[in-house]
């Protein structure tokens, strides 16, 4: 194996490590909400440092790779995609922290509604995170496309939950603070799904050479 390919494998390995951390953070932040689990939220706060450190490490690694190996064509696009994916993953980590923070404020309150939709949404989102990174590592366009399909499902779940929460607020003003937290949580989950979609779009660009960003009809 060429030296460059070895380094590329290392870069992919680091991104996989980061995505595993992010996936766990999403899962834990939602457990903190749905099961009122403070220790899960605390773990999300602790892991944020590791995710931030990995982001900087991956940036440095990719920049050094560009400087020392001077890759061209497909290899160059791969390293550029890795830099973008890195940014998306770090932002997903931040969004998990936001969810965990809201979980803490919900700990002491009696729940106004069952959390089934949030769990359902989060299961979908976690699988999008995993699949988008698997698609990147395996150059798998079909898997990347399946991520794009899930994004629409997440959006409809979010819209349904949004309308439901609005009606809770209109019914009883005492529900308002908690409903706002829950709206914020579903919004964060939707954003995490959007970042997975970015990654999947980058993968499609790498594999098929077509830029599907900003062209929903190509999906």
């Amino acid at each position: 194996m060429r030296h460059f390919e070895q380094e590329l494998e290392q870069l992919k390995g680091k991104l996989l490590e980061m995505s595993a951390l992010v996936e766990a953070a999403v899962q834990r932040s939602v457990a903190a909400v749905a099961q009122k689990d403070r220790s899960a939220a605390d773990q999300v706060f602790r892991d944020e440092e590791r995710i931030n450190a990995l982001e900087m490490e991956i940036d440095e690694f990719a920049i050094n790779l560009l400087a020392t190996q001077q890759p061209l064509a497909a290899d160059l696009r791969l390293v550029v995609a890795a830099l973008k994916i890195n940014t998306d993953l770090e932002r997903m980590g931040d969004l998990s922290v936001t969810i965990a923070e809201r979980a803490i404020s919900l700990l002491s309150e009696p729940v106004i509604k069952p959390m089934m939709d949030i769990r359902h949404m989060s299961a979908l989102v976690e699988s999008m995170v995993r699949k988008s990174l698997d698609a990147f590592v395996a150059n798998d366009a079909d898997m990347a496309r399946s991520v794009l399909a899930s994004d629409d499902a997440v959006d409809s779940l979010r819209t349904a939950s949004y309308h439901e929460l609005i009606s809770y607020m209109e019914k009883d003003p005492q529900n308002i603070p908690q409903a706002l937290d829950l709206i914020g949580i579903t919004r964060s989950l939707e954003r995490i799904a959007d970042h997975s979609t970015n990654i999947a779009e980058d993968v499609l660009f790498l594999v098929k050479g077509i830029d599907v960003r900003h062209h929903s009809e190509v999906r």
Partner: protein
Amino acid sequence: MRHFAVELEELNQALLEMGGLVESSIHCSVQALVDRDERMARRVIEDERRINQMELDVDARVTRLLALNQPVARDLRLLIMALKINTDLERMGDLAVNMAERAISLSKVPPVKPLVDTPRMASLVEDMLHRSLDAFVKRDATLAAQVLPADDEVDSLRDKIYSELLELMQLNPTVVPAAIHLMFVARNLERIADHTTNIAEDVIFLVRGVDVRHHATENRV
């Protein structure tokens, strides 16, 4: 092959042009909200296509410069930064479009409250964006560092808007849907400020070699 410096300058201009359009989208989306002007909001939504096209163009430029010039050291970092700024700008454009969509919904219902802090927040954020891009093209870390304190001001305006809206909703639940739109507008402006902070931090890193990302304010020079 054209001179690297010339192409870099063109890249700067492309980012500035995109930044100008994003700045105007932010401004017009909030103005549309305040004036209940649906036509202005629709223009912001139309401009998104141009912003998206500019994003693709900047990415292509950077990739070409990396391939043809194989830059090292500072030039390489500069190009990577341009990629990151490009992502930040495109996302700010998305957030402006989201505000424009909310302005349209809100133009169809009675006003919840006079909007004073929201346009103030918008002009702070526009100024942050302007200065962070200026700092980038001038490679001026001092200018970049001046962007960072405004972020706290933006955060406290957002908190103020949130608590006022919360109170209004609790007094009168019929305003809930409209008040939530206004909360999201404040949140979007705060996110836009965060993106300008990202740009400013990147400039400081580029010029001084200090990574201020993920560090507390005491490290912000």
